């Protein structure tokens, strides 16, 4: 009976995990006859690298909506690429989608805009207020750092609308349905008018008689495409073969303008026009045929890039970090239940789910390396540092769990893993997280050593801090927290802190050596360097306080939690200051979160420093009794 129950339990958990995994790994099946997947993989050059349209669609949507889906007025859910297709090919419909996230619509003061409980608005909703918005935007403080939250919202909305407009014009000119339905003809007319147009233009300039009709339509095209070249957001037109991967691509407008110089029109431009026409006329066969041709052309021109672009689209679809985030939650819940009942069975399940989550987390990191072509480099920006801090903490947590087998390692690992991935998720709102590295930072060797090691130091500090928080909460609240558990936890915190010390120290000095190599100064007291040094000093304080007996359990735990504050400061606080070479990602709301985090840690420090008589655990009470005895003895002696 018991055995059956256990089997049932395992099956249940396995089923749950499978559902979670399947949801992310399932091949996206678009309910459409159009070959959306192939379209999503068409290449574009943005931010210095070639990536699939899918990535641009996602990043744009993240910036505008802070999420990766669109809900149409009919209630259908669109993926980013489907939304992108509507935006560029059927803009009249895309304008009705509510994709602009406005956190406080009432505050804008646009009469009639704000709806109760609605934070998403469509282009059409906002359009009547463009004049007002423009006026407000003019009055905003020119210095971004000095803007109030209200002004920031105005700036964000304004910039969002611009981005929307520019992305809309990515593939071809935009106009009424008549124009969009005959784009290919428009290009043909344009191509055929260039020759005669030039002739008429020269005649006009020479003061001879000229054909005004031909000249005017020639000038009309010129104006249109000049505007388009200034608006179009993306470089979708590769240079003609043979191709140098370091050459600039052109946007559609520029390519069309350059036809005037006698260059032939790139087949990519006509293909996108044909795609739009096919999509608008609801002709899937023609659409799919055109996508296929575009793709073949790209493969021919860039044989070494197609795999990476394809892989990036898969990576986007799978969202491995999102999946491991969900699994970490599951681990945490399982461990918590295991402390109440079925300790061994659930504990084991939790451990294996943790391993699975960790593997997926690792795959995600490896995938990023492959896409960026930087093997061994885990951290390239603030976003990836968050992902990697979590990864390191989980790795250490797995070791602890393996040694102690009491669930604490797994619980804390999953908690830190989850929290850091949440942080990463929010950091990703600003756009592409696979951006190029500036020249100063462009060194795979140092990125792989210094940055990796120091970030692992962060991981260890956070894990030690999380374990100390466990000590505080269990010690104060849990009756079952006895001397052995306390000693085990103390040992974990000590071991992890040793590890943190080693990694922060070596990482910091490696950073110094990098600095010495690249600008001749081993140490420059730059805020980020100081932050790293503070972590090392914190670790040193902890170790010396322990070895010298300066602090006992409570003091050491307080120090470990203090380590969380120091690490958070080193990681984010120094970026908030905005000075020095390392301030690579200023996040504004970051400051509030930082304060919230520090307060929470101070709360835990206060908790762990509570006098023993307030501790409800056996462990705490035994101290409290000892202390009382000592007082009584002293009193009796007196």
């Amino acid at each position, binding site marked *: 009976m018991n055995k059956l129950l256990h089997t049932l339990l395992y099956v249940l958990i396995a089923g749950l995990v499978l559902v979670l995994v399947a949801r992310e790994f399932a091949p996206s099946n678009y309910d459409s006859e159009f070959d959306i997947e192939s379209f999503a993989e068409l290449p574009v*050059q943005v931010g*210095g690298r070639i990536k699939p349209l899918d990535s641009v669609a996602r990043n744009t949507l993240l910036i505008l909506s802070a999420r990766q889906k669109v809900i149409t007025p009919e209630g259908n859910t669109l993926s980013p690429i489907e939304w992108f297709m509507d935006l560029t090919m059927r803009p009249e419909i895309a304008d009705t989608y509510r994709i602009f996230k406005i956190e406080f619509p009432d505050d804008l003061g646009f009469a009639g805009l704000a709806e109760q409980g609605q934070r998403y608005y469509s282009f059409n909703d906002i359009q009547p207020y463009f004049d007002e918005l423009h006026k407000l935007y003019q009055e905003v403080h020119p210095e971004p750092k000095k803007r109030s939250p209200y002004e920031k919202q105005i700036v964000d909305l304004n910039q969002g609308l611009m981005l929307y407009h520019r992305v809309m014009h990515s593939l071809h000119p935009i106009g009424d349905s008549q124009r969009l339905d005959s784009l290919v003809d428009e290009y043909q007319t344009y191509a055929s008018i260039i020759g005669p147009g030039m002739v008429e233009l020269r005649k006009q300039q020479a003061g001879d008689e000229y054909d005004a009709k031909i000249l005017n339509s020639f000038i009309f095209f010129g104006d249109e495409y000049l505007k388009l070249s200034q608006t179009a957001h993306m470089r979708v037109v590769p240079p003609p073969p043979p191709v140098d991967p370091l050459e600039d691509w052109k946007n559609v407008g520029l390519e069309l303008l350059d036809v005037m110089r006698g260059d032939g029109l790139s087949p990519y431009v006509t293909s996108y026009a044909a795609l739009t026409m096919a999509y608008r006329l609801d002709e899937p066969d023609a659409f799919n045929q055109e996508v296929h041709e575009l793709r073949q052309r790209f493969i021919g021109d860039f044989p070494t890039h197609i795999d990476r672009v394809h892989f990036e689209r898969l990576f986007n679809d799978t969202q491995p970090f999102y999946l491991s985030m969900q699994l970490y939650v599951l681990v945490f819940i399982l461990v918590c239940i295991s402390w109440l009942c079925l300790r061994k069975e659930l504990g084991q399940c939790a451990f294996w789910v943790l391993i699975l989550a960790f593997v997926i987390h690792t795959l995600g990191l490896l995938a990023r390396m492959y896409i960026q072509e930087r093997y061994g480099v885990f951290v390239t920006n603030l976003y990836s540092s968050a992902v990697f801090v979590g990864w390191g903490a989980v790795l250490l947590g797995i070791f602890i769990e393996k040694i102690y087998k009491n669930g604490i390692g797994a619980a804390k690992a999953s908690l830190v893993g989850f929290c850091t991935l949440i942080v990463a998720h929010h950091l990703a709102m600003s756009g592409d997280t696979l951006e190029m590295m500036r020249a*100063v930072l462009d060194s795979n060797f140092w990125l792989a050593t210094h940055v990796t090691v120091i970030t692992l130091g962060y991981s260890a500090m956070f894990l030690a801090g999380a374990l100390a928080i466990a000590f505080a909460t269990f010690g104060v609240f849990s009756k079952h927290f006895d001397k052995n558990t306390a000693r085990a936890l103390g040992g974990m915190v000590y071991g992890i802190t*040793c590890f943190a010390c080693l990694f922060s120290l070596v990482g910091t000095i*490696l950073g110094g050596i990098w600095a010495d190599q690249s*600008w001749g100064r*081993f140490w420059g007291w*730059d805020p980020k360097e100081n932050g790293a040094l503070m972590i090392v*000093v914190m670790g040193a304080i902890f170790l010396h306080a322990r070895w010298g007996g300066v602090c006992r359990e409570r003091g050491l735990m307080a120090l470990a939690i203090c380590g969380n504050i120091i690490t958070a400061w080193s990681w984010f606080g120094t970026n908030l200051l905005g000075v020095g070479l390392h301030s690579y990602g200023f996040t504004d709301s970051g400051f509030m979160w930082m304060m919230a985090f520090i307060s929470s840690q101070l709360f835990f420090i206060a908790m762990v420093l509570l006098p023993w008589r307030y501790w409800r655990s056996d462990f705490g009470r035994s101290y409290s009794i000892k202390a009382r005895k000592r007082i009584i003895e002293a009193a009796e002696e007196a």
Partner: protein
Amino acid sequence: MKNLFKFFSSLKLTVVLLAFSMALIFFGTLAQVDTGIWKTQKDYFESFLVIYSVPQQAALYDYLHWLHIPLPGGYALGGLLFINLIAAHITRFKMTWKKSGIFMVHFGLILLLLGELMTDLLSVESQMPVDEGGRSNYSQAFRQNELVLIDRSHPDHDTIHAIPSKLLKAGKTIEVPDSPLSIRTVSYYPNAEIGRATNGKAVKSPATQGAAVKMGIIVNPKEEVFAENTINTATAYVEVLGPDGSLGIWLVSNVIDDRFPPQMVSLGDQSWEIALRFTRHYYPFEVELIDFKHDKYPGTEIPFNYSSEVKVHHNDSSKNQKALIYMNHPLRYEGLTFFQASFANNDKTSIFQVVRNPGWVLPYISVLLMGLGMIVQFGIHFFKFLDKQSSK
């Protein structure tokens, strides 16, 4: 005495000193928002005592302006930690295998601190701009100035008499070695604003000679600035004295440079060019910039690579060398290191950071020692711990 020794060797002292170090680093980071890295470094880390106060721009200034936090400076803490460490090793530590890791870590730390001290005291940083196709045999330190008297009478070479600006103290007279001249400083301003008097107004100026008189230049002293990428306009009025008395008072400033006609001091048939300029370091070689490249990622303005192809022409031609200097790949030559620091002039001029740091290898040794030491020490602990676990 014994008590004193005990105090200095105690771990409690270590913890307290480390805690102070942490506070010092923290406030030394905050202060940078206000005063920039360079000055903060001098105030906080290369000093014995520092007092932190809330900067005026800070949001909470109105509430916290009374707050002044005195802290021991970097030299004080470093020195005390050093004494603490040595004392502890003398009294408490016995050289055993079990403690070998700790010894290595601490020895590495001592090397690191010494290396940092050496860098503070001995390293020299300056910049060398070179145009494409051009050559340079000197570099300039933009935070230091020197008063120079240049004798250009020799056809092959110039003779330069240089006086560091820190010797220019108002009222003091300095003899210029190997020349009949001496210099009396009338006034010296570390930073100033220099402009021309508006028409008609009489210029109140001690100057009696040179550009100041001809062009009606006026000087407004200003606070010294220390933020990154700022330059102080060092300015002085100096009186040049010959064997028979004063030759006149000149205005010199580091903005009155090659763009202006040289200011001349004459005595008999001898003459010297007088100028205040950024301190120059001359080398027995010339650096020729053959080509500077500034690449960007395709379709963006994000820099991808800066690199300078150079050729070094040494007086001793057997030491001539070609090199490509780019990010993270400096040229080490004759005890100097040349880094790609910046560029100017539409990518036609490359600017190198030139560093002489005799202590540069110490950190490399210390990282090895400290890393190894920690691995040994924690390794011993860890395996002992695993033994205990498995014997349970």
